[in-house]
């Protein structure tokens, strides 16, 4: 009797552990790798997706291809449903690697667009987000770029540039924390189609305030400096600066260096009105390219370091003006105030106060290496 009961339980259990309700066969689902969102007439949304599939020729190895589909709708989910009507299997966003937002759309509240990514348990929160100068679908519609599928191409481009400290390494999840934080803003990489040629290139970094794109984009060089000042250096951080003034502008006037180490110290002086925030950045630089001269002499590397110090400080000052114009508190000064100077924070209306604070950057460059020649 007892054994019979146990057997009954075992059979019952087995019959429901097959999980037939939530079975999703990989061979049927259509995996979306890249998504672009645009605003079209009457405030409709236009979603364009790149779907991976592999066509296997008989006997031979299968070669991956991608299928570009786009559809309109009022919400992101509706556009997805409309796309689903045009494809052979269920739409699956679980492999999405990046989301491209059109310029116009990014200037609205982007949380509304990303809501579905946060709400859906199957979505990929590690996906990257980028703004496109122009229409985002144009990039996906390139479809392939010299044997490389467009989604793979963009993914690699973003990953490489992140390592070069040219764009912030922000995923859907990391920007969410900032969108909800009134004392910390974020920035996203901006891509564009290079004029004439059908190629995607990095335009720089799009500065956001709150949940909206401010419309101000930093150049790649400014972006690197911004990331260094915010203590977000990745593997490499290259700068090219003009250090000589010969009559002809040749490569001989310039030096390129890599910031091998970057140390940042932020100081907030709450006694002053307006608030004074000084950011000290100490760069240990390694020269990558310096055709005009040898460095291995006493005094020379110091002199060169001084020139670079002055130039980068100047660039940083201009950068601060741009940040304040965009009202983008990228360094999280508001968060810093909340944490360490809560009394000051309560007195300020950060929304307007940030633009008027005194941001004083100070960059110092020390040359510590110069490659394998003198």
């Amino acid at each position: 009797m007892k054994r019979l009961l146990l057997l009954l339980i075992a059979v019952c259990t087995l019959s429901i552990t097959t999980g037939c309700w939530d079975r999703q066969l990989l061979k049927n689902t259509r995996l979306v790798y890249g998504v672009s969102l645009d605003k079209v007439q009457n405030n409709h949304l236009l979603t364009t997706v790149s779907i991976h599939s592999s066509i296997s020729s008989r006997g031979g190895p299968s070669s991956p291809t991608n299928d570009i589909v786009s559809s309109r709708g009022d919400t992101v989910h509706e556009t997805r449903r409309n796309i689903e009507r045009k494809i052979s299997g269920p739409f699956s966003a679980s492999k999405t690697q990046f989301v491209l937002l059109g310029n116009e759309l990014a200037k609205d509240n982007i949380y509304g667009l990303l809501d579905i990514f946060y709400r859906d348990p199957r979505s990929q929160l590690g996906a990257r987000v980028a703004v496109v100068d122009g229409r985002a679908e144009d990039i996906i519609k390139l479809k392939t770029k010299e044997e490389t599928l467009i989604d793979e191409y963009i993914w690699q481009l973003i990953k490489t540039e992140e390592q070069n400290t040219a764009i912030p390494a922000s995923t859907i999840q990391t920007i969410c924390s900032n969108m909800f934080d009134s004392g910390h803003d974020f920035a996203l990489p901006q891509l564009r189609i290079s004029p004439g040629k059908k190629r995607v290139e990095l335009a720089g970094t799009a500065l956001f305030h709150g949940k909206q794109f401010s419309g101000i984009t930093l150049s790649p060089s400014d972006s690197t400096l911004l990331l260094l000042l915010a203590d977000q250096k990745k593997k490499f951080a290259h700068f090219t600066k003009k250090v000589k003034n010969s009559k002809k502008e040749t490569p001989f006037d310039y030096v390129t260096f890599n910031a091998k180490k970057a140390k940042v110290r932020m100081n907030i002086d709450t006694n002053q009105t307006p608030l004074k925030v000084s950011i000290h950045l100490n760069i240990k630089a390694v020269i990558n390219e310096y055709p005009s001269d040898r460095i291995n002499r006493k005094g020379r590397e110091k002199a060169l370091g001084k020139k670079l110090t002055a130039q980068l400080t100047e660039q940083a000052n201009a950068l601060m003006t741009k940040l304040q114009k965009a009202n983008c508190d990228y360094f999280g000064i508001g968060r810093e105030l909340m944490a360490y100077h809560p009394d000051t924070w309560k007195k300020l209306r950060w929304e307007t106060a940030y633009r008027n604070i005194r941001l004083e950057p100070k960059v110092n460059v020390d040359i510590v290496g110069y490659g394998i020649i003198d």
Partner: protein
Amino acid sequence: MATKNSTITQGQLTFFIFQTQIGVGLLSLPFAVAKIAHGDGWISTLLIGFFIQLCIFLIWALNRRFPTLSLYEFMPQIIGKPVAFFFTLLYSLYFIGIGGVVLLLFSNIINNWVFDVTPRWALILLMVSAGIYLARENIRIIARFHVFISFFAFILIFLACMAYAHIDIRYILPIGHSGALNIIKASSEALLSMLGFEALLVIFPYVENNEKGVLKAMSIANLIATSLSTFLVFTCLIVFSPQEILVIPQPMLYMLKSFTFTVIERLDLFFLSIWITFAVTSFVSYLYLASKGLGYAFHKNRHKNAVWYAAIACGFIALYPDSQLAINRLAFFITRTSFAFFAAIPLTLLLLSHVLRKKERKDTAS
């Protein structure tokens, strides 16, 4: 009374209590405390651990007077048979209620996170059958399972440590910004995920050499459970910005979902599969405690006969709520009533036993 081969060592007691305390509630704990105490939620978690320690003293002081009897067995000696019978039923109902809430939260989380099409009854049936299978056995076998499962805690801690790549300590500063009142209020929210220590009321007589050392074993269990929850709460509070965490009911899972590795793309699913075993252990413990009471009341102290219907009752409790709101209401109700069962009633019993000088008589032989 405990028979020879159904006793547990004090080490096993530690793990039994730890496993009963750590359950499904912990997944929502950071959210629950952050709602009221914001960045100071971790202090609330520490605070509730301290409060529980006081309750452990209380329960220990009560049980110590009756070293070979469980709560159900010594209650008649203090308050008389009819009243004790009523309280035995009440305790069983309470344990069934908590078991039901464990099932409910478990099935709800699995439903929301992994199997959204699978009906809830299927998930509950799975859990109930596993629960029946284990809870029918004697305490020693259950405790061994709990000890074995406890090693998974290291994997959970390891996974949580992954989050330290994306933290901002400033989210919890300045310490104490939400005020003492809110911190205390929030600690009552943390109670649900820390319940389980009251199991001592029932399992005390099964512990070997329980004249001494039980208090130490219990305190260690509570210390581990409190540190683990505080660590997880702290981690979540510095990963999510203060306003963000208020919209994420399961921050632990959400945090892991955002990490991607080449081998495991969805760390939260990995985490969840380990977590299920922690839910099972809590459920089994409560099922055992409930059927112990019912067994004493109706089946001449043979709890096996009661496991069946106790488990089915838990299943029905878990099936009943049909919306997120109803689920929250039920969890709230259970948390509030739990106070009577682990503090108020034991305290009354302790005082009564002192006043009436009721104490188990020592055998002259031993």
